[in-house]
């Protein structure tokens, strides 16, 4: 019994260690981009103020809410997976992906709206950084969705069980990282 007590109090890193190193590397790359954006903003404050005024703050807000909500469903899916409910976890992941599709649709609409105003990556420093950072993030969202599809299929097939869900946890953690990056990106690009 004391042995069991020691076991249950043990701290455990969710997912694979390799995934966490990958997450740290991704966070570092984005940190450099965010700091670069902040410095460039101070060097070209008028240009950045004008550029931000041309963005749709509401679309940034919708995208933040969709990513947080998608992450919420992924967290619920992991909760179900912990209880060995693979089918339920897979369904929750499908909802998470559908919510994430709203993010992609809004992002494409936002890009199109800027292109209609003849604004693109070469317009000025603000839009170069805006397109670079948001598109790089969008690529991470797409990769995250591929990972979610992969783990949803495995969960539906009951390939995971309550004591062996490391792969599922790693995929979920990646998705939460994508969400976390957006919550820094949103105020930096749209709010401040």
């Amino acid at each position: 019994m004391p042995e069991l007590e020691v076991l249950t109090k043990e701290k455990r890193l969710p997912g694979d260690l390799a995934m966490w190193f990958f997450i740290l590397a991704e966070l570092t790359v984005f940190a450099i981009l965010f700091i670069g954006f902040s410095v460039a903003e101070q060097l070209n404050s008028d240009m950045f103020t004008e550029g931000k005024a041309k963005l749709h703050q509401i679309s940034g807000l919708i995208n933040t809410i969709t990513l947080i909500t998608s992450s919420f469903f992924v967290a619920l899916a992991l909760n179900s997976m912990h209880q060995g409910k693979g089918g339920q976890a897979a369904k929750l992941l499908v909802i998470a992906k559908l919510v994430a599709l709203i993010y992609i649709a809004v992002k494409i609409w936002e890009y199109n709206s800027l292109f209609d105003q003849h604004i693109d990556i070469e317009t000025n420093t603000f839009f170069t950084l805006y397109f670079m950072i948001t598109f790089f993030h969008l690529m991470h969202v797409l990769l995250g969705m591929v990972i979610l599809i992969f783990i949803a299929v495995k969960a539906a097939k009951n390939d995971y069980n309550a004591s062996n869900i490391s792969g599922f946890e790693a995929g979920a953690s990646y998705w939460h990282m994508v969400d976390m990056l957006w919550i820094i990106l949103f105020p930096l690009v749209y709010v401040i």
Partner: protein
Amino acid sequence: MTNNVTNHILSKKKITYSWLWLILLTVLSAYNEDIFALFTLNKSLFIGCVLFIVFLKGQQIIDVFMELSQAPKLWRNLLLGYVTLLPIIIGLIYLLSFEFK
């Protein structure tokens, strides 16, 4: 092993409260400028407030969604360090810029 994993389950209620808190903070962050304009508060305070909200949201994602509140301290601290240090660095860049204007 099963007991070990079971011990790490966070309740659905906690996850749901965390989600609602994140939504509230997001809306607050988006309309922060209007609130500050209403009370004629300065821009430094507004930026500080927005960046503090970033930290609060990051902490929720790390502890609740990523379940790192029950992970080894090193990993939790590494990620919490990220959502603490990055907003501080960004805040300092803005603050120094205001000083030199």
